[in-house]
C-alpha cells in the first residue's frame, strides 16, 4: 500500500521529517518499556511517545491537511490538548496504585518519600 498525498516539495519534506521523527521517538519510548528493569523506571518511558511523538505527528498532519485543503485545518489540536491533559493523570494514578500495592506487600525495592530518603542518608 505505497501511497502518499500530492504535496508540494517543501510540505512533503516537512511532513516526512515530522512523521519519521514522531515514529522514531514513539519506538524509542516503547523499547524503553521493554528494556528498563523496574516498574518505576518503566513508567517514564512511554511518555516520550505520548508527548513528543504525538506532537510531531500531529504537526505533520496539520501541515498536510492545511496544504491539501488550502485552508488552515487545526482540528488535530483537539488530540494534542487531550493527550497532554490525560497522560500525566493516568500515569500518576498508575504509579500511585503500584506504590500502594508494593507497600502493602512490604516489597523492599519501593522508592521512598523525599523526607524518609533524606533521613536515611543523614543517619
Amino acid at each position, binding site marked *: *500500500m*505505497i*501511497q*502518499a*498525498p*500530492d*504535496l508540494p*516539495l517543501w510540505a*512533503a*519534506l516537512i*511532513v*516526512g521529517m515530522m*512523521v*519519521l521523527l*514522531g*515514529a*522514531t521517538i*514513539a*519506538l524509542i*519510548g*516503547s*523499547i524503553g*518499556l*521493554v528494556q528498563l528493569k523496574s*516498574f518505576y523506571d*518503566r*513508567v517514564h518511558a*512511554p511518555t516520550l*511517545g*505520548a508527548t513528543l*511523538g*504525538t506532537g510531531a*505527528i*500531529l504537526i*505533520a*498532519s496539520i501541515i*498536510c*491537511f492545511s496544504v*491539501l485543503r488550502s485552508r488552515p485545518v487545526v*482540528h*488535530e489540536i*483537539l*488530540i494534542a490538548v*487531550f*493527550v497532554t491533559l*490525560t*497522560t500525566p*493523570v*493516568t*500515569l500518576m*494514578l*498508575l504509579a*500511585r*496504585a*503500584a506504590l*500502594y*500495592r508494593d507497600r502493602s506487600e512490604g516489597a523492599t525495592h519501593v522508592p521512598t518519600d523525599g523526607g524518609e530518603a533524606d533521613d536515611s542518608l543523614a543517619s
Partner: protein
Amino acid sequence: MSILILAFIITFSQVLLGIAMGCATFRVLRGPRAHDRVLGLDTLYVNAMLLLLTYGIQTGRTLYFEAALAIGLLGFAGTVALAKFLMRGEVIE
C-alpha cells in the same frame, strides 16, 4: 519523485510504529505484575492512535482522525478505570 519518497517515508514510519506496538504487546503479555500490563496497554493505545494518524496523512481522509480521537478518549477512560481497580479493588465507589 517527492511523492514516492514521501510514500516510502510514511510506510517506513508505519513499520516503526508497528514495532513499537509489538514492544507494548510484549509488555502486556510478559509484564511481571498487573500494573506493568496496564502500562503496556496505555502505550499500546497511544501507538495505535499515532498509527491511525499516519494512515490519515497517507490517504488524505479525515475519517482516520476521528478514529484516532475515539481511541484517545476511550483509552484514557480504560486506563483510569484499571488504575483505580488496582488501587481500590473496585472501579465505581
